[in-house]
């Protein structure tokens, strides 16, 4: 059956640039975020490619040591503060979450728009810093170096400070929305798991981010006024800065990964056409990760000079993070077992996630072990672990989610063949880039140097080839996704035969989301009971 785009939808009900910049519609705000966040991803990706280019040879190709320090700092800062933290909650959470719970909008639409503007202000500070001397502290801003370097530390701290508020407001908004605006009859255990994940994420955002705010403010004051809290020359303690910083930034790692896990729960259930296995376990493991994430920050500081007692406690507690993560992985696999799996593009991303995130997670356990970390600290093993979790985990989930909801967002389908080629390119490119970095790390290759011993040249070159493959893959994705917005085939309301509530609306949805009050008719994963009425599957699977 041929689908058509509905005559009126949220994209054309109001027109003109002002209707976008002043919009209160959560869907449009999601798209505003998408533009900014994806541009940041592009920017951070360019820096990544420059780094890999420099590392093809131990000699200087593009950059000397100072330039290289700035490039990896900017890669980290842009990717973390501008891309990965806001990515899933602000884009897909904004667009999909209210639809999933049958709400007309988020609880505080004006605050939602304000948080986008705050994000843009933070973005501007970051770009300003980029053009006024750069930054060479790494994304962690460790004292005392960040207190002494002459690069643009203040603008970049301001950027991170401002972006933090954007994150807090988004989190606050989502918590209230999920508490108060669920469709009548929708209980907590009928929420899609993506909503649970967004909820757990939002809790971390409101609990941890204020501490980042005060930490960065203190660091700025240390630089400007010299208050003596972090600067050893002023009687301060630089290790205390690391406590302050990681009290936010370790939970922030879960801000990055939890929403990704939420997306994976949706994808696995939808494309296995099967009731999700262990719903409550997955839901509560999200909260479990959010909670334990606050107790383990000191594992970043094993060699920083913190007390031995603290190191032992933090190492011990770190292992507990593995439990809820493991629960999720096993439940997803149990969901797929005996399901009728269709390998559409979003599912391919989800499968990539399962493989790569498992590797990332297990190497995390290795690094959390105090005695091993002392040797592997600040080597490429850490770099690789981090990228397996963040790129292999979160980025796979983002792109899985974008491919999954793209027909809902724009009403049109992308080119499935190109999409599958892109998944393969990314998957292969990613492993080529980062797997050798585990090996280099165990052999002692330290991170954050523009040069290296000649024995590593083969592996570094191999890694750089992988980065190039990934770059091509992401470029391809950008091209066909943008093409789909204008020229794609109309997708219909429910191309994936999914049961969550956002698929009950036309694609794209109306400005007010639902006609009248939305009623709950079935659970989000009742694949054993219900076949959705509007599910006419046009797009053949392999």
């Amino acid at each position: 059956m041929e689908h058509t785009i509905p005559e009126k939808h949220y994209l054309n009900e109001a027109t003109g640039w002002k209707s976008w910049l002043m919009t209160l519609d959560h869907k449009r705000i999601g798209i505003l975020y998408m533009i900014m966040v994806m541009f940041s991803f592009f920017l951070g990706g360019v820096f990544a490619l420059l780094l890999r280019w420099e590392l093809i040879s131990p000699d200087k190709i593009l950059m000397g040591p100072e330039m290289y320090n700035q490039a990896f700092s900017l890669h980290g800062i842009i990717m973390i503060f501008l891309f990965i933290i806001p990515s899933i909650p602000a884009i897909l959470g904004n667009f999909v979450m209210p639809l999933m719970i049958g709400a007309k909008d988020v609880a505080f639409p004006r605050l939602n728009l304000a948080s986008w503007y705050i994000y843009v202000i933070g973005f501007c500070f970051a770009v300003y810093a980029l053009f006024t001397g750069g930054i060479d502290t790494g994304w962690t801003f460790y004292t005392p170096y960040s207190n002494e370097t002459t690069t643009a530390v203040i603008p970049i701290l301001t950027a991170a400070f401002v972006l933090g508020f954007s994150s807090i407001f988004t989190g606050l908004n989502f918590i209230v929305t999920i508490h108060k605006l669920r469709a009548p009859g929708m209980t907590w255990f009928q929420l899609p798991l993506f909503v649970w994940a967004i909820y757990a994420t939002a809790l971390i955002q409101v609990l941890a981010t204020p501490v980042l705010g005060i930490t960065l403010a203190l660091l700025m004051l240390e630089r400007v006024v010299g208050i003596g809290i972090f600067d050893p020359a002023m009687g301060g303690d630089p290790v205390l800065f690391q406590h302050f910083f990681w009290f936010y930034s370790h939970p922030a790692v879960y801000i990055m990964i939890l929403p990704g896990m939420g997306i994976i729960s949706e994808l696995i259930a939808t494309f296995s056409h099967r009731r999700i296995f262990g719903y409550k376990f997955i839901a509560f493991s999200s909260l479990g990760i959010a909670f334990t994430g606050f107790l383990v920050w000191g594992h970043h500081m094993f060699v920083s000079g913190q007390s031995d007692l603290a190191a032992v406690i933090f190492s011990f507690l770190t292992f507990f993070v593995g439990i809820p993560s493991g629960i999720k992985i096993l439940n997803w696999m149990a969901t797929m077992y005996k399901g009728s799996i269709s390998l559409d593009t979003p599912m391919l991303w989800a499968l990539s996630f399962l493989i790569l995130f498992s590797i990332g997670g297990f190497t995390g356990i290795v690094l959390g072990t105090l005695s091993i970390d002392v040797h592997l600290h600040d080597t490429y093993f850490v770099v690789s672990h981090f990228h397996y979790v963040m790129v292999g985990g979160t980025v796979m989930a983002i792109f899985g989610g974008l491919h999954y909801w793209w027909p809902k967002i724009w009403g049109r389908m992308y080119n499935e063949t190109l999409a599958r080629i892109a998944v393969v390119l990314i998957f292969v490119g990613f492993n080529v880039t980062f797997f050798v970095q585990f090996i280099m790390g165990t052999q002692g290759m330290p991170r954050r140097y523009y040069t290296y011993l000649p024995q590593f040249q083969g592996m570094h070159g191999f890694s750089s080839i992988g980065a190039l493959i990934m770059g091509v893959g992401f470029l391809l994705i950008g091209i066909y996704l943008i093409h789909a917005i204008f020229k794609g085939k109309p997708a219909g309301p429910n191309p994936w035969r999914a049961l969550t509530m956002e698929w009950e609306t036309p694609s794209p949805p109306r400005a007010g989301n639902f006609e009248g009050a939305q009623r709950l008719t079935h659970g989000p994963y009742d694949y054993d009971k219900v076949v959705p009425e509007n599910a006419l599957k046009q797009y053949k699977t392999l």
Partner: protein
Amino acid sequence: MNQTTAHPAHLQHHFTDAHQQAESAKLGLWIFLLTEVLLFGGLFCFYAIYRSWNPDMFHNAHAFLNVWMGATNTVVLIVSSLTMALAIRSMQLGRRKHTIVFLSGTVFLACVFMVIKYFEYSHKIHLGQLPGKWYFFEGIAGTNPHIFFSAYFLMTGLHGFHVLGGIAVITWLIIKTSRGSFSPEYYTPIEMTGLYWHLVDLIWIFLFPLFYLIG
């Protein structure tokens, strides 16, 4: 919820009724207060760590704060918190004039607090009991007394900014109330501001003994 209250002017389109809207606002505000607690929490942590490292210096330095000014300010803030609570109560009972009186009282007391704070600050600035590298006072025994004054100025300063913010918002509330924007059915902004103001009081309740009494 009956039909007559289905669409009052203050009800936004995405809420089904005024009750849902009010509850949402309240939950949102409590979460905001949670972020405030953790924001101040960083500074409390700063204080706790350095006090545990230098208990003697903190003890020596705290003697240079004026207990009576601090105690007066505590009384002022507690009374302002009481007037704020009474302002809400008056609005619940529909006594708009009383609300305006109590809100004005709150603003007045907040201003008194800031004036006393001003005298304390200017005295310290004069003596050189300043944060960090600006410190030039001599006569406090112990290591690094400037850190005590860093903590003092940061914590009372951030608190002071919150008082100033409160003054601005409550003044706006007085204007809105006198224009008749609020009623016993809808007084969410007053209630929200009240919660915020009590938190400001709450933080001072801890700052006062930590700095003025035990150092």
